[in-house]
């Protein structure tokens, strides 16, 4: 360190530093990434992985929707009812509270009463406990299989055919162990919908 060094103006240095990085990190970097991903053919993902039908957007493959008609596979419990205008995030209720017990009990009974399942069938926890985001597009294979008899009854499709369909929309863990095994209900139900329209079951 030399004795004759000029004193640093910290205000100037800090101001320039902050303004430059505001422009570079706040705008240059996100803009650069957006341009690159659209340039290298990742526009589908970059725009939200939207699924269209006859030119109309009907879903994003990643965002859960409330398929509630009995001939669809139903998604998980959502704290906001899959209405994105209500924001996102999980349920408020602690899992050891009376309120949570009551809510879960009611929905479990509803799933059993509507499920056309044999006596003593257990409902998979995945089907009655709320998701973390309220927009979980997926369910476990167990919950999908639980719903088979109801969906089969209302869709007039046979169970083994529906099982194959579920299988087709099942994702397995990467390399055999990274992630869970799950069924995307959004893409599954859209496929099911097209089959039902084709069969004339629904219009």
């Amino acid at each position, binding site marked *: 360190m030399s004795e004759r060094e000029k004193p*640093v*103006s910290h205000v100037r240095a800090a101001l*320039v*530093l*902050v303004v430059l*990085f*505001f422009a570079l*990190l*706040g*705008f240059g*970097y*996100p803009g*650069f*990434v*957006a341009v690159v*991903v659209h340039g290298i053919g*990742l526009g589908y*993902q*970059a*725009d939200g992985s*939207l699924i269209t039908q006859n030119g109309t*957007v*009907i879903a994003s493959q*990643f*965002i859960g*929707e*409330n398929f509630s008609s009995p001939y669809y596979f139903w998604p998980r419990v959502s704290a906001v009812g899959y209405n*994105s205008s209500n*924001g*996102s*995030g*999980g*349920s408020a*209720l*602690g899992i*050891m*509270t009376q309120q*949570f*017990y009551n809510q*879960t009990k009611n929905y479990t009974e509803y799933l059993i009463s509507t499920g056309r399942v044999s006596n*003593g069938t*257990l409902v998979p*926890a*995945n089907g009655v406990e709320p*998701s*973390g*985001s309220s*927009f*979980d*597009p*997926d*369910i476990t294979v167990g919950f999908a299989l639980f719903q088979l008899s109801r969906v089969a009854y209302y869709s007039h499709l046979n169970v083994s055919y529906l099982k194959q369909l579920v299988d087709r929309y099942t*994702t397995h*863990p990467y390399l055999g*162990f*990274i*992630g*869970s095994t799950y069924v995307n209900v959004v893409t599954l139900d*859209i496929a099911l*919908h097209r089959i039902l329209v084709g069969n004339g079951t629904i219009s």
Partner: protein
Amino acid sequence: MDLVEYAQILFLVVVILVVSYYLGIYMGRIYLGKRSFLDKYLGPLENFLYGLMGINPRHEMDWREYLKAFLITNAMMGLLAFGTLFFQQFLPLNPNHAGALGTVLDFNTMTSFLTNTDIQHYTGELQLSYFSQMGAITFLMFTSAASGIVVAVAMIRGIVNQNGTLGNFYKDFTITITRVLLPISIIEALVFVFLGMPQTFQGAVVAHTLNMGSQVIYRGPVASLESIKFLGTNGGGFFGADSAYPFENPNALAAYIEMISEASIPFGLIFSYGHMIRNPKQARMLVAVTMSLFLVGLAIALYAETIANPTLASLPINQSVGNWAGKETRFSIAESTFSLILNTYTMTGGPMVALNQMSPLSIASSLFGMEVQGSPGGVGTGLMNLLVYVILAVFISGLMVGRTPEFLGKKISTGVMKYSVVYILIHPVIILAPLALTVMSGFSSFIPLPPNEAFTALLYEFTSAAANNGSSFGYLITAQNSNFILLSESFVMLIGRFAPIVIGLAIAGVLSSTKPLAQTKSAAVTDDPIFAVFLFAFIIVLSALLFLPVLALGPLSGFLGG
């Protein structure tokens, strides 16, 4: 837990250690000023920036000047971000027409991201413009992370140097961004988009759904925010649901990249430290201690999340895999739980679960991580905490066995001890005082949650704010308590961030002008297994003494009382 889940945990831990090691050594070399092939490309850019700033990068600062530069820079970052939020309704890039947040929430949000906390009391997809998500949030995610990292580097230099200097703040800050944070973030963001994250400036799109009429699909420049969110242990998401939201975490591969990157700088800086003090054994000892603390916390939470919820035991529910509540199906329960503990032990605070629905035992474990703040803690600040723990442990073990309290050859002076004790005491005070104040003033009664959960949520909120973590319970803020909680929390975040940094730099200042003693046989050894065990126990006992009573009132009674 099944075998696959054990494999997931083992894989994550091993990859985190390997990546941290290499990143840490790389960062150590950068801060030592070693030559690298990047000099050719980045050198001219950095020199250009130094020219604009009007600084000489070779100028070495003492701790006061380093602190001054740090504080002025942080003040300007805060002002600029506050202005961005405050005027967002008049600024461009607002396709969804987000309105004003309100001044109190603007202030809370700015302090939250300036302090690397990232507690969010807004719903990003509804309430922030893209201009704010980038100009306020993404910008502060980089600069607050860089701020944390450079003070840790300055502290390391304080331990090594003998001439009273700690390096040049502006140079350290600049190269942290140009050589670490920005390049890694760009690569990660591209991979994230490939895996399914949006990166667009178009507004929300209305989907005409097959069953429910219509659904608004919110999107935006998500991937560029997410990569620095994890790399810089920030944790505040683009969407309200944060990392649980499918667009922030579309599949397990994205989740693994996120988790590995949020752990790699906190653990990596410990390796940088070993590299810079030329004592890798010291670093291995600290990594062993921090990783052990983390694994203990993880084991508790994994146990709690993979058992059947006893409250639901009488219902006809198949709970064989554990607690699905608050978790996303595309991740295993073990992975989601790992994310919760990693996010609270690294001070990232963006777990891919909904906190309200975690088992009270997992919440207790998360609180413990935020109370320790050094296992491994946030970027930079975690290492700083850890070094203060080491100094205290050296002193106490010295008293116990009658050895000179010295650390890496430098005598620990009265001044350093005083600073260290104050440093440690700030944390409990800024958690417990506002907690007591909120309960006694009656503002806690407005929290619309069951009583025990409300207390836990409030304790969690202030702990998260003080530790600059950022995870928090939902449904805490109501119209009656919002100003009180938002403002008190803002001050907790500011004190929790800046007071330890000021004291840490002061300790670095004292150490940097301390001459090392001649190696004596009586000096305490700080890199052997005995010291590691002592440090491990010391950190647990210290935190238990400070926090066990409130843990018993909150999550522990929630677990036992069911």
